[in-house]
């Protein structure tokens, strides 16, 4: 195999080996050994990912698509699916992101999980997750991607319910699994439809032949696209399948950072970008994607406004930012979506890890109503969180500004003023709620006296610092220094150039309009921050909005609706099925046994020892034979 192939295989293989080793022997290693081993495998993946990136960069742009077939997985007549990896610009960039952020979070976890007895199990699951996610990203066909898809779902469940003795955590894990399963049904049906249409699941083949096989705007293309999108909705926690993500915060914070912010939840976006050729043939489906993304974004942002749990604020924030990514891909701005995916990974992971540092200092507290004034004892953490706030809100020159700006610009340029307006409003909400979170946690008077509050240890702090650096710098880097869009162009075709950086966008529309959009969005974001500061730090606005507050507090009653319409009937059905099982089936089975016993007891009465009765039965037998003889034709 070529060097590219080897590095491509190493990327998911190293964490997979880590999982095996940690699973089998990790429990017996002393102290933090498990954590360091796990981090080492992921670091190895990161190195391999960088090497892969560089190898591809050394090739001419047309040749940057390398397929690596590992073995002939399914060979059943017409159904021929190899176990294939695809190393191209998109997968290389994603692999570098996933492995890099994963590596930082693994190192952070060493400190965070230091006092937990189940450490080896945690790191084993984390490595398995990394292997699955990297496999998903490097997949060469839908089947291998599905393996990764299911693998990350499984690890999400395992890690959310990591502290399985806690009923809330166990329930949250099940909820996550079941809800994403719902989406996976659509995903699987979509895969079947793709195979039926294309005869293959290979990505390069799909990209090549989508235009030929799918009439533009036809029902088939739309159906496939929507089915696959259903999977994305579940996995990426969009409306209406978002309900599992806030509850998933019951898992360890590094898990929330890695899986539910930076990587797994982005799989839906990634999948759509991979299949962009297919989606381009279904404009209606793209519209659905964009609208879903926009509505989810504003809905989740509004929910974050009233959350008092710090991690849940970040969870809703993730849902909202994922909505932005879907909004982007919904207007065919593929590279913009990926760009925001990357910057979001940096600043959201940063925010989660900083929140984790706060929890570490407070002994696991997440309720912001019990925090306040932590900036004094935790200055470094506060600064890190503050950097994340600015990045999330989209203040230049931090990362979030560039990616969010690209998205809003593309949406406007594609002719969707309403969606743009929603995105803008959400940006304002974003600034507001994240500022609120910062103020309630770090600023203002403390809600209670905090004992023994100290900063995180170095093993937790250095990854945080690295993420701060990335959140600050990567926006500029990916826009102007090593632009992302042109890099992705071989994979994404013309669509990538469509969302190239500011220069190309400026060429697409009048420079004045573009500049005005920039100013407006920054102003809105900044306005949100200022408003949040005024309300929460200075108490500028008093008063209640009871009706609105109640609706928001109940998240527009969506979860109550689910409970009534789906969960309660399911429970009833399960109860009924159990009753049928006990009452009917068990009774039937036991009834058979009982019947046999009763029959035996009845027959036993024939054996009463009366010879004359036995003789009578002999006679009866003789009569039967006699009758047969006589009646025989």
């Amino acid at each position: 195999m070529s060097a590219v192939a080897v590095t491509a295989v190493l990327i998911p293989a190293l964490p997979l080996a880590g999982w095996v080793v940690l699973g089998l022997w990790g429990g017996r290693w002393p102290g933090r050994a498990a954590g360091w081993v796990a981090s080492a495998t992921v670091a190895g993946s990161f190195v391999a990912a960088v090497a892969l990136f560089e190898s591809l960069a050394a090739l001419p742009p047309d040749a940057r698509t390398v397929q690596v077939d590992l073995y002939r997985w399914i060979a059943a007549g017409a159904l021929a699916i190899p176990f294939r990896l695809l190393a191209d610009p998109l997968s290389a960039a994603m692999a570098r992101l996933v492995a890099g952020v994963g590596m930082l979070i693994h190192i952070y976890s060493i400190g965070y999980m230091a006092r937990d007895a189940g450490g080896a199990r945690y790191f084993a699951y984390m490595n398995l997750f990394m292997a699955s996610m990297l496999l998903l990203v490097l997949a060469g066909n839908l089947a291998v991607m599905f393996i990764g898809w299911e693998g990350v779902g499984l690890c999400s469940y395992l890690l959310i319910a990591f502290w399985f003795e806690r009923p809330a955590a166990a329930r949250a894990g099940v909820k996550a699994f079941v809800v994403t399963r719902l989406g996976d049904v659509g995903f699987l049906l979509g895969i079947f439809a793709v195979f039926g249409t294309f005869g293959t699941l290979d990505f390069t083949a799909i990209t090549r032949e989508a235009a030929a096989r799918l009439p533009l705007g036809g029902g088939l293309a739309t159906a496939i696209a929507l089915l696959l999108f259903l999977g994305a909705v579940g996995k990426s926690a969009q409306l209406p399948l978002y309900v599992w993500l806030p509850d998933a915060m019951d898992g360890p914070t590094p898990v929330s950072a890695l899986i539910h912010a930076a990587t797994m939840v982005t799989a839906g976006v990634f999948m759509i970008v991979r299949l962009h050729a297919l989606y381009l043939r279904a404009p209606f489906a793209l519209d659905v994607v964009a609208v879903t993304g926009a509505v989810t974004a504003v809905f989740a942002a509004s929910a974050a406004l009233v959350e008092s749990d710090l991690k849940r604020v970040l969870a809703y924030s993730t849902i909202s930012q994922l909505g932005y990514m879907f909004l982007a891909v919904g207007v065919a701005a593929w590279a913009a979506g990926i760009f925001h995916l990357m910057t979001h990974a940096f600043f959201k992971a940063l925010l989660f890890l900083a929140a984790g540092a706060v929890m570490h200092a407070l002994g696991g507290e997440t309720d912001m109503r019990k925090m306040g004034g932590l900036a004094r004892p935790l200055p470094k953490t506060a600064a890190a969180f503050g950097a994340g706030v600015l990045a999330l809100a989209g203040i230049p020159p931090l990362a979030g500004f560039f990616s969010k700006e690209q998205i809003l610009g593309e949406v406007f340029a594609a002719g969707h003023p309403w969606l743009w307006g929603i995105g803008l409003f959400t940006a304002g909400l974003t600034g507001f709620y994240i500022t609120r979170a910062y103020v309630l946690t770090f600023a203002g008077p403390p809600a209670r006296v905090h004992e023994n509050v100290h900063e995180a240890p170095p093993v937790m702090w250095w990854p945080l610092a690295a993420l701060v650096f990335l959140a600050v710098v990567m926006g500029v880097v990916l826009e102007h220094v090593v632009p992302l869009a042109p890099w992705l162009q071989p994979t994404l075709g013309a669509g990538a150039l469509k969302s190239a950086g500011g220069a190309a966008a400026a060429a697409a529309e009048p420079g004045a309009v573009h500049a005005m959009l920039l100013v407006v969005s920054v102003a809105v974001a900044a306005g949100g921050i200022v408003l949040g500061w005024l309300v929460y730090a200075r108490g500028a606005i008093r008063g209640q909005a009871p009706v609105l507050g109640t609706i928001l507090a109940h998240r527009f009653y969506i979860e109550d609706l689910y409970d009534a319409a789906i969960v309660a009937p399911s429970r009833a059905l399960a109860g009924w099925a159990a009753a049928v099982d006990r009452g009917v089936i068990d009774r039937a089975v036991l009834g058979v046994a009982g019947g046999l016993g009763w029959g035996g007891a009845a027959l036993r009465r024939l054996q009463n020892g009366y010879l004359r009765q036995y003789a009578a039965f002999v006679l009866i037998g003789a009569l039967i034979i006699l009758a047969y003889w006589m009646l025989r034709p």
Partner: protein
Amino acid sequence: MDVVLFGITAVCALAGGAGVILSRRPVHSALGLLLVLLSLAVDYLLLGAQFIAAAQVIIYAGAIVVLFVFIIMLLSQAGERLGPGAFDGPVAVRFVAALVVLLAAGLIALVTRTPSAPAPVPAAFGTIQDVGRSLFGRYLLPFEAASLVLLVGMIGGVALGRRLGPRT
């Protein structure tokens, strides 16, 4: 002429049969059995089975019935009444009556299917020479086996008749 003879033997046989199954005392049953046996011997003669008729009288009437009478006297059992008390137990009278009627009906139905035209037979049919020729010819093996049966019966009778231990 033969029909009349048959009628007499039939009446006697039926009377004897009734006596066997209906008598209160075993001795009376034994006498009924004797009557049946002798009547049947006459029937055998009518049917041209002289040897068998003689054997019937000698063996059955002369030995077996005698044996029965010996045993009856040995046991000196008084017969039980043949009334409802005779068959209390799991075998109900009605049930048995039904069975018996069924059996009779079946047999009669079978019987009426047989042709009544006999084959011509030589004059020497059923004589001792005729039967002997079969016994020592075609049926030699069963004949020898029958002697074994008798031997076994003798041994069995002796073995069972021995008293083991003190008189009960």
